């Protein structure tokens, strides 16, 4: 049991990661914080029967605090194999947001791209006024091709 618990523990951590990947978004240190959340819950994750809602063969991960809110998964196992994974909590877990989460494709970025390294031809952004243009990336791209 110890081995399977350890294995499940890793799986929970992995699933928290996976879930974070699917539902969380980009941002500085986004993935890093998800990793930390998954690993940090290891000592208490996947304890069979923890919590009243859990039954035989079901393992609830503890609540992992991600940058975007709490994430908790439940794993159902039989004969050492995972038979089902369900999500007990998602970030912003009200019903309306869950609908949106289902509809959307959340995007994870470890970090946003440095514009200088992205070699873009043009930049789309909220309306740049003439004053703000001077310091914009678009101005730099334009300037490089004016001659």
């Amino acid at each position, binding site marked *: 049991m110890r081995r399977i618990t350890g294995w499940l523990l890793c799986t929970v951590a992995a699933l928290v990661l996976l879930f974070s990947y699917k539902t*969380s*978004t*980009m*941002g500085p240190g986004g993935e890093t914080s998800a990793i930390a959340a998954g690993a940090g819950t290891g000592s208490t994750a996947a304890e069979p029967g923890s919590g009243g809602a859990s039954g035989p063969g079901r393992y609830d991960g503890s609540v992992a605090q991600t940058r*975007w809110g709490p994430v908790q998964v439940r794993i159902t196992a039989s004969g050492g194999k995972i038979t089902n994974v369900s999500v007990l909590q998602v970030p912003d877990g009200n019903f*309306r947001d869950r*609908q*949106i989460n289902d*509809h*959307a*494709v*959340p*995007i994870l*970025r470890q970090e*946003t*791209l*440095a*514009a200088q390294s*992205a*070699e*873009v*031809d*043009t*930049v*789309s*952004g*909220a*309306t*740049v*006024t*003439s004053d*703000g*243009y001077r*310091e*914009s*990336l*678009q*101005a730099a*791209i*334009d300037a*490089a*091709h*004016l*001659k």
Partner: protein
Amino acid sequence: MSGVGTVDLTVELARRAWVVQVMGLPVSVHLRGPGVRTDAVAARVERLFAELREVDATFSTWRPESVLGRLGGRMPDPATAAPPVREVVELCELARARTGGRFDARRLPLPSGGVGFDPSGLVKGWAVGRAARWLGDLPDHDVCLNAGGDVLLRTGADRPGWRVGIEDPDRSGRLLDVLTRHDGAVATSGTARRGAHIVDPRTGRPATALRSVTVVGPDLLWADVYATAAVARGADALDWLATLDGHEALLVDATGRVRATPGWPGR
């Protein structure tokens, strides 16, 4: 790539940019192709900018002497208006219908104070899309037009697309994503540069739930209108954007979370 007869494939296309401040915005035109340094091509670009200046002289609500300025917030009468003005009025009504009232030019804060008809939010995309026809029949030339962060693209067959960076609304100079596009439009609306300036017509108050919405679609007018309407709509904008045929969207909400519609063409 470098065999006899294919030498041209390895030569990078000549590229040239023009930038003019018009309609209160920096508008840049980038062209790729063999004739970008010719007078004929430069003349076409100048015609494009001249048309945008004419549009501004007609539609600017900041100019008391413009057609819209003289009306002082009243909607032009489509029955008597000049054809371009009638077209814009009708497009504003179509935009209101297509956005469930979230884009509504009829009751907006006016530069002169008060509330009235201001089609500026639609005129930019309409005017740029229309003026781009001056470059439409230049064979062997690719077009990348950027009007204050809204982008229109045309690329010839067998040539590389344009790389369009989507600016991070919270960190200017950094990008959320990069799309390679050959044709169509990429429009972004939001609060990053000018604060909460998009009003939700249903409440009359500035919309603050979303920081930025980027819409990819076949033409600039509708990509821009839908992006603006999505910011006004707020929390449930992504569900609505996902219902728009031929359009995909990426949005950043007030908490910094970034989401996209299922067909978003980015990475």
